[in-house]
Structures are given as structure tokens and as C-alpha cells.
């Protein structure tokens, strides 16, 4: 448990993505937009978001496994842990960049009213 705890605190949680939840908005989009090409395009964008989020989740699992192994070793140095973390950090930044790109692509596919209905402020 101590190893799992150090791992989760070190990573500052597993669900570290900036906008993961947008990928789960398919039902909202289907409910708000009429069935046409514009809606299909929006659903394709959400599909792309889901795909990269899935890839990111795989990365998180892999890094968590590496970290658990590293924390379990009595002779693991801070530098070894830093190397794993830095690799992970690069992947998180890459993911955030891609998901924000897709967020703006989705924004172009929805009107302001549709956006506000799909993503209510509170």
C-alpha cells in the first residue's frame, strides 16, 4: 500500500488530463444537435478525443507500473524516479496540447448555443 500511495502522490493522481471528460460528451452532443453532417463531424472529433485519451490512460498505467517497481526497490535513487517522471511529464504535455487542439476543432463544429447546452458552466 505504501508503494501505491507514493506512486499516486508522486504522479499527483492518475486522472491528470486537462479535458478528458469532453470525450465522454457524445450523448450530450446527440441530444443537442440535429442529425446532419455537422453533428457527424462533431462526433468524429469526440471519437478522436476518446482515442488519444485511451492512449494517455495506457501511458499512465505503464508509468504507474514503472514507478511502483522503482519505489519498491530499496536502492532506487531520486534521479531514477525523476527520469520516469520526466518521460511521463512530456507525454502529459503532448496529450494536453492535442486535446486542446481537438477542443477548438469541436468548438468550430458547434454554435455558441449548442456549446452552452453540451457543456453547461456549473
Amino acid at each position, binding site marked *: *500500500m*505504501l*508503494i*501505491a*500511495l*507514493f506512486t*499516486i*502522490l*508522486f*504522479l*499527483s*493522481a*492518475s*486522472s*491528470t488530463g*486537462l*479535458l478528458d*471528460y*469532453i470525450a465522454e460528451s457524445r450523448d450530450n452532443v446527440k441530444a443537442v444537435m440535429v442529425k446532419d453532417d455537422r453533428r457527424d463531424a462533431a462526433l468524429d472529433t469526440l471519437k478522436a478525443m476518446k482515442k488519444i485519451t485511451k492512449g494517455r490512460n495506457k501511458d499512465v498505467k505503464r508509468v*504507474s507500473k514503472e514507478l511502483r517497481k522503482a*519505489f*519498491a526497490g*530499496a*536502492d532506487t535513487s*531520486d534521479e531514477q*524516479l525523476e527520469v520516469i*517522471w520526466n518521460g511521463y*511529464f512530456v507525454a*502529459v*504535455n503532448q496529450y*494536453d496540447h492535442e486535446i*486542446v487542439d481537438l*477542443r*477548438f476543432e469541436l*468548438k468550430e463544429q458547434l454554435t*455558441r448555443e449548442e*456549446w*452552452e447546452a453540451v*457543456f*453547461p*458552466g*456549473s
Partner: protein
Amino acid sequence: MNENMIETHAIRVRPGACCRMLVVAMAFSVAACAGKGKSSATDVEAQAFEDLRSEIREVIDDPARAAEAIALVNALPDELSALRRDVADRKRRARQLNADYDASRADFEALAEQFNRERRAGRQRVLDEHREFLALVTPEEWAEISKAHTKAMKATIKSMQAI
């Protein structure tokens, strides 16, 4: 007298009221179950930390070193609670920004950078705690303590991985 009261109650019940009362009763029962579940999760987590302390006492023969190791463990539940609060807050801020149709790319980049700063701040503390723990125990003791997996610990690990 009692029979009259029952009759009176029966007469006063309007059509549909029974259904409403049933719904209210069900809602209370669901709320009670939810409350019970939440409290159980907290209890399981507390038990998991207690199991960890017991394991440390069992594995480390030297009471002074065991007490130091337990003192380190005692800080961890609060850190875990703080992490849960931070993650909930991060999600709320991200949702709030995304809901703003006019939010710019720079706004998202600033938020991502802020999240990164928060993650980096916690990382050094964990490295220090890990190092302090390793300095207190022998490699054999560390291996034994790391292997401990009670039922409460397993449930807590699962709940941590969902954060």
C-alpha cells in the same frame, strides 16, 4: 378511537399521495445507503492505514525506528485527502474554462501550466518522504512492509487508483 384515527388518516390521503410518500421513503433509504457507503469507504481507508502501522510494528524490531516510520505514515492520510481535494478542484476549473465558448488557447495553456506547477510542488515532498522512509528501514524490512496487502489495503489502493 384508534380505528377512527386510522379511518381519518385513510380519508385524508389524497390520490397520488401514497406514491409520493413511497418515493420520499425510497429517497431517504437511498440517501441512507449512500451515506453508509461513504462512511464505510472512510472506515476502510482508516483500517488500511492502521494495518500498515501494525505491519511496521511487526516488521521493525526496534521500537524507536518503528515509531519514526509510523510518524511518517501518519502524515499520509492527510496528503491523500489533500490530493483528492486538489484533483476535484482541478476538474472544476477545467470544466469552468471549457464551458466558456470564448476561452482562448492561451487560457488553456495557462491552466495546463498551473496544473503542472501544482504537480511539481507535490513531487519533491513525496521524494523526500520516500527517502526518509528508506533511511529508516533495512532493505529486508522495506521489502516486507511493501509486500503487506490486507483486504482494507487492497480496497484503498483501488480507490486511490481512481483519483
